[in-house]
């Protein structure tokens, strides 16, 4: 009798799915904050932009938004890359590229917000 070969799972599917949803729920209040502050900045960019991150609430919300959105974005981009790029080599390359881009952007963005918070 021929033995059925079960292909090994990557064991990341459900964890990936749950994290996508959790970060989505976490971003609902953050997006509402972003819209209000975007309108506020648009009223007077010259006067408001330099001191925007000096307020503790804005700095904290900004840092959480950067982390949550880049995390949510890299999970989503990973799904899109897995769907549309069939070449396994290329697929893993682009997934790693997205992770690297998100990771470095998150660190640089957090540092910049902390700097604006301290000097603003």
């Amino acid at each position, binding site marked *: 009798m021929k033995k059925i070969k079960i292909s090994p799972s990557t064991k990341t599917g459900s964890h990936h799915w749950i994290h996508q949803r959790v970060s989505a729920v976490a971003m609902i209040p953050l997006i509402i904050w972003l819209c209000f502050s975007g309108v506020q900045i648009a009223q007077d960019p010259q006067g408001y932009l330099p001191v925007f991150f000096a307020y503790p609430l804005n700095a904290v919300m900004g840092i959480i938004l950067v982390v949550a959105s880049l995390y949510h974005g890299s999970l989503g981009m990973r799904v899109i890359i897995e769907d549309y790029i069939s070449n396994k080599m290329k697929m893993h390359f682009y997934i790693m590229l997205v992770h690297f881009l998100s990771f470095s952007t998150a660190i640089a963005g957090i540092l910049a917000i902390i700097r604006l918070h301290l*000097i603003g």
Partner: protein
Amino acid sequence: MNKKPTSPHIQIYRWNATSLTSIMHRASGIALYFSVIAICWYIVHYAYQINIGIEEENCDCWSKGLLKCLFLSAVFILTGALYYHFFNGIRHLFWDIDKGFELKTAKTNSYLVIFLATIFTLATFGIAFYL
């Protein structure tokens, strides 16, 4: 060449609201991902300027007007993408708790999401510039 029958490709199917919202969710997601990265690096650039809040050159040339116009249209499109992804994301979260799967509800909700995203984008820009 490959003689196997292939499944009908995307241009065979009739467009409807539910498939359009699904495709637009992905497209807006990609656009938002790259815009988040661009905004983050803009904040980095802004934070490490020497004199924050002081513009160095203040020319009245046409290129600056063009840049401002392009920037505003990009912000307008991205605001639309953000609201759209936000509302459609909430619809996805309702699907995850097993609500809104009936064909009629799904169709109505697709139109509702597009309508809400349009209204909110226009309202945001109206408030930002005329208030």
